[in-house]
């Protein structure tokens, strides 16, 4: 634990400095506002540390995944404007140079993740290729003028950033004063000046990777969200910039969320000015799978989600936004909630640290451990003498750690086996399998048996591929618990290989035997029938089949031995977050339902017996707005206010228990009317009705069947 921490601190030293001062602030809020105990502070620190580690892990992953895409992009950039650099003047180039080199990045629908990608891209381009990287968003560029302005200021801005000498700054001030006159021509003269100056200055900049760029670095323009640009702006911009291609080496990078066809739809005419190269980013689903693998399916981070919570997060991902960033956000919330609400989460850290912390546990904490259901279950199973001794928790946590280690290895193996089965009885993605395993004993599920059946029919090459994968899994995992199994796997592999060789020999000899002579039809049929019989009687298993069954049995045994759900483990509460509904409530709320419930069934919130009612009706003592709402539900598109107010008054006077015969005083009537007015205007604020001119003294319904 400490090692990883120090490593981390080294890496993000500056980040941590900021963090520490900030921790002191926010730790105050951690423990329900009570005086800050040592315990809650420690918990909060643990939480923050864990989160930071996970976050940087996720960021690293993102970088790694983007690397491929970026490499391709750089390659593309190197290729483009070759001619420009050579200052070649041949005719062919003259024609071609009307085309702007364009990289179309298809990034997928998860728009929220794009920002990070672009941020990484810009940083990388600045470091390796050119200082002139401009990123533009549609909302900044309502017309060409704004676009050019933004473009020019950013291009010149980065130049000034690069060599921030006094003299340049003055120039900058001058520039900003003439902001209104930006045009492509202006930009190109500026560019010529700068590059010439640089050429003579003999470059001393950090851009060293590609020497050919030194003289004339390209201007990379990133249009982050091509779909939201207006056609006219884009078209004009492209036509204009294509005219200046001789002087300015412009490269466009288009961020596409939908499909590449959009370019043609957006730019029916200007597309001929573009020389497009299509680059595809990794799909968000794969990204998620990798992320899960790095953050949850590992023993590196002690924190885990239970089945429901994970399911909620995955569902939000699959059905709402496909956004990995939001998934990470959900994970952050889960971690926070876990440490906030579970006092024992103090033990949710790495093993060596756990050892230390256990020794300093207070009485209360020990007591709360004893109260954990899983611990009580454990104690009940033990004999009384042992019960006394069983208070050292360390062992359990260690066991839990080992359990996880084995769990993930076996899980990955099982996934390797089942992910290629037809129909995917146990799910195609590892997350599905993981959820299933978290929920209950996987071997008791309906799909498990058929899956094994299918496994028993695998062809040899498939089986061997899977075994290779499994060996890979074992090799990559640090744990030594399942060493013997790994050995066994390798053994199997070797056997299969030898089998293959022998098999071929067999085949050779068998076929010679059966060489048939030419015969007539009758004999042929007969011999064929014989052969068929022979084959069916020969059904007893071949060597391969025997081996295959052994493999399947082995994996079955492994599964039964290791893949039991975590809630059977003692002290699992310490590391598993179980508040699925909190996640759903805070991340994926349903405000309309809440409003409807509050209006329709006030008892749900106000636990007063007077408000209790069966079925749909509400009692007449309910809050005014509920009554008004209920009454308005009875109307179609238009509501007569007079009728409404009278109906309202009927209900309310009945509730007030005034004597019906004594003519209610004018004042009470007035008050009721005022209450009605308030209820109506509140409904208007909530968006249920609106005033209408269709008929005098009417309002229009706006919801659910209105209008």
């Amino acid at each position, binding site marked *: 634990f400490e090692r990883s921490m120090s490593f981390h601190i080294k890496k993000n030293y500056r980040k941590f400095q900021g963090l520490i001062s900030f921790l002191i602030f926010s730790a105050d809020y951690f423990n329900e506002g009570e005086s800050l105990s040592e315990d809650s502070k420690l918990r909060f620190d643990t939480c923050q540390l864990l989160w930071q580690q996970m976050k940087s892990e996720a960021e690293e992953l993102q970088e790694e995944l983007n690397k491929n895409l970026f490499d391709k992009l750089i390659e593309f950039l190197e290729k483009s404007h070759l001619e420009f650099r050579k200052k070649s003047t041949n005719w062919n180039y003259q024609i071609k140079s009307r085309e702007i080199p364009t990289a179309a990045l298809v990034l997928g629908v998860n728009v929220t993740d794009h920002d990070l990608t672009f941020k990484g891209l810009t940083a990388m381009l600045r470091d390796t290729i050119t200082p002139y990287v401009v990123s533009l968003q549609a909302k900044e560029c309502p017309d060409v003028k704004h676009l050019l302005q933004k473009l020019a200021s950013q291009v010149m801005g980065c130049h000034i950033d690069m060599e921030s000498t006094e003299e340049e700054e003055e120039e900058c001030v001058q520039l900003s004063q003439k902001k209104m006159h930006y045009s492509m021509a202006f930009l190109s003269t500026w560019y010529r000046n700068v590059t010439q100056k640089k050429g003579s200055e003999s470059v001393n900049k950090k851009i060293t990777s590609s020497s050919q760029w030194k003289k004339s670095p390209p201007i990379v323009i990133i249009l982050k969200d091509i779909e939201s640009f207006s056609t006219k702006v884009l078209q004009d911009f492209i036509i204009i910039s294509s005219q200046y291609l001789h002087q300015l080496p412009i490269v466009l990078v288009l961020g596409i969320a939908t499909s590449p066809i959009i370019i043609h739809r957006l730019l029916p005419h200007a597309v001929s000015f573009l020389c497009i190269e299509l680059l595809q980013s990794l799909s968000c689903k794969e990204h998620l799978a990798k992320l899960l693998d790095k953050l949850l399916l590992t023993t590196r981070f002690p924190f885990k989600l239970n089945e429901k919570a994970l399911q909620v997060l995955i569902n939000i991902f699959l059905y709402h936004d496909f956004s990995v960033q939001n998934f990470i956000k959900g994970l952050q919330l889960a971690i926070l909630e876990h440490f906030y609400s579970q006092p024992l989460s103090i033990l949710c850290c790495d093993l060596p640290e756990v050892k230390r912390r256990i020794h300093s546990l207070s009485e209360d904490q020990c007591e709360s451990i004893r109260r954990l259901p899983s611990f009580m279950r454990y104690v009940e199973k033990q004999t009384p003498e042992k019960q006394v001794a069983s208070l050292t928790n360390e062992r359990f946590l260690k066991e839990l750690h080992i359990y996880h280690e084995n769990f993930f290895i076996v899980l990955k193996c099982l996934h390797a086996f089942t992910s290629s089965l037809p129909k995917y009885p146990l799910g195609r993605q590892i997350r599905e399998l993981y959820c299933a395993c978290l929920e209950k004993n996987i071997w008791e599920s309906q799909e498990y048996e058929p899956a094994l059946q299918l496994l028993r029919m695998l062809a040899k090459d498939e089986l061997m591929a899977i075994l290779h994968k499994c060996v890979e899994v074992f090799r990559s995992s640090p744990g030594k618990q399942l060493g013997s199994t790994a050995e066994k796997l390798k053994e199997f592999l070797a056997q299969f290989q030898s089998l293959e060789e022998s098999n071929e020999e067999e085949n050779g000899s068998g076929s010679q035997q059966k060489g048939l002579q030419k015969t007539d039809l009758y004999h042929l049929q007969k011999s*064929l029938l014989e052969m068929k019989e022979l084959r069916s009687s020969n059904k007893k298993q071949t060597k391969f089949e025997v081996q295959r069954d052994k493999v399947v049995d082995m994996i079955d045994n492994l599964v039964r031995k290791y893949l039991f759900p975590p809630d059977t483990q003692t002290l699992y509460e310490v590391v598993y977050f179980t508040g699925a509904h909190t996640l759903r409530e805070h991340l994926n*709320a349903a405000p*309309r339902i809440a409003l409807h419930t509050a209006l*329709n069934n006030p008892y749900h919130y*106000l636990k007063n017996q007077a408000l209790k009612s069966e079925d749909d009706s509400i009692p*007449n003592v309910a809050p005014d707005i509920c009554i008004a709402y209920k009454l308005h539900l009875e109307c179609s598109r*238009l509501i007569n206010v007079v009728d409404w107010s009278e109906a309202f008054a009927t209900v309310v006077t009945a509730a007030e228990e005034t004597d019906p015969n004594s003519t209610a005083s004018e004042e009470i009537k007035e008050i009721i009317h005022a209450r009605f007015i*308030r209820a109506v205007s509140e409904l208007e604020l909530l968006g249920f009705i609106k005033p209408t001119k269709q008929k005098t003294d*009417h309002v229009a319904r706006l919801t659910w069947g209105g209008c």
Partner: protein
Amino acid sequence: MSGVQSRVSPSPWVTSRATLVASWLRTRAVLREWTLPPTLKFSGLGRFGEVLGAQCLAPRETLIVMSHLKQQKVKMLEVQFVGDDDVLNHILDKEEGAKFRKDRAQVLVNVKKLMKKQENDQDEDDQDDLKDENYVDILGADSQEYLKNGCVASGGNKVYSFQTRKKPEKMAELAYEIAKTSGKSVPLICKNTEKMASTPQSSKKQSTSEKDQLKSDEKNEFLSTPYRLRKRLTAVSTFPSDTESEYSDSNSEDDKGIKQEEEKISEVLMDQKRLTKHSSLSSSSCKKVSAKKMKKDTTTDLVEEYFEAHSSSKVLTSDRTLQKLKRTKLDQQTLHNLLSKFSPPFSAELKQLNEQYERLFHKWMLQLHLGFNIVLYGLGSKKELLEKFRASMLQDSVHVVINGFFPGITVKSILNSITEEILEHMGTFRSVLDQLDWIINRFKDDSSLELFLLIHNLDSQMLRGDKSQQILGQLSSLPKIYLIASIDHINAPLMWDHSKQSLYNWLWYETTTYRPYTEETSYENSLLVQQCGTLALSSLIHVFRSLTPNARGIFRLLIKYQLENEENPSYIGLSFQDFYQQCREAFLVNSDLTLRAQLTEFRDHKLLRTKKGTDGVEYLLIPIDTGTLSDFLEKEDKEA
């Protein structure tokens, strides 16, 4: 072959050609693996594939049949239409020829790859579809959990079903029902209700009796409807004429009898239709139709209900107006006074609710600090709650409270208050975006800056625009700006698309308080509240004071002119040219450009409306009633 069938018809939504092909390819894969004897695997598939390939685009129904056929064909391949030698060679090739096999296998591998690819695509779709069910399951499973802490399971169905056409007297009926729940006789409020209640009684009686009969024997009902309908119609037409005039549709108020009868007929017919549909539905459900079919039925039902509800543009409502009732509009002040005399019930429970929310304050602070922003939703004004939060938590930190419900609020004013009061910057900005950039840079440069933004009603008229939300979102995405906001409108979440939501980084908290929206609604042009109120006057004065002397003069001129023409019913405003002339004569402006500049200022404050007359001339009008205007002039004169 049964396995194949179940695969080919996976779901009703597989319609496109591509998916058809894909599913067909899967069929092939299955055939290859499960139904063919191992030796025939390769040769069989070669032909098989060809034939099938040609059939790929056939409709799905035939596919199933075809696959049966194919299977037979495959079985016969060995002995059918081929000469002995060929067959023998054929078999021998396979049995012995390792190299031959390899060749074929290679070809196959290619095909296989292709197939696998498509398979994958298809399966992904399929799986997601399947997952839908899972999702619903999970939702359902969760709802129990939900019930414990915050939601009602039956909600969804009720919320999203369409409204069927309601009879006008329904509301009164319901009112009686609700009123009766206390179990005592209900007084009739006034004469009018009595009349209203009595008029529909005849029809009500009928309808209830009708209902009873319906329940008892539906079939009989259908047979007898024509007769009953006629009877009912006569009943309708024999209504006294004065009560009839109480009901009319919104479009043509004057024509009575005939049209109404028609309406009634159609209504009855519709009822009948609905009934038949229901009966057919129930009978079919008796026959245990699969769940899926049922679902389909209900959806079509929903669609038809929608069109029924919207079939005619006419809505039947009573014609009574507030004037007949002799209940004048109240103004804001009297309304407030009246309401203060009424104490809301369930104060204990409300307090309990509030305490429950107040316990969350620390958590909110923590989450705000960790980069989340918080949005509160649920029925009831959340202003008090946020006020309390501010008082207990934010005493020592810099914060800005924004009353979103205030009609004059703009994003510009929010940004201004940040730049001027928090960051103490005196300069001006060319545009809101520039200002935003400046703020962002300031916060980036100076890490000691921290700011809490409290926005009451983030979804108010003025702030709900796309641009405003974008700017606020960008502001809230700064790590050192903490936003806590409330929303009330039912459609408020529609303001945010995915990118805005990720900017805001919301955590949702339900805070149903049942508090009256006193302040929030007081600015609203409520239909029943008289608009002459003190508010208009005070805001008028406020704006007026901030004007330059010349502008005041201009505005005063316009007011005077409008007051002079008070009595003229056809007054549509002062034409721009006349007004310009007057202003010139009073030495208030020197060109019509300056006048126009002033007018824009007024227009921005909603003090002026311009209208094109029939002659194409611009007319200027102050959209404030004359009483307020004369009050205003009086006050101003006194001051001066």
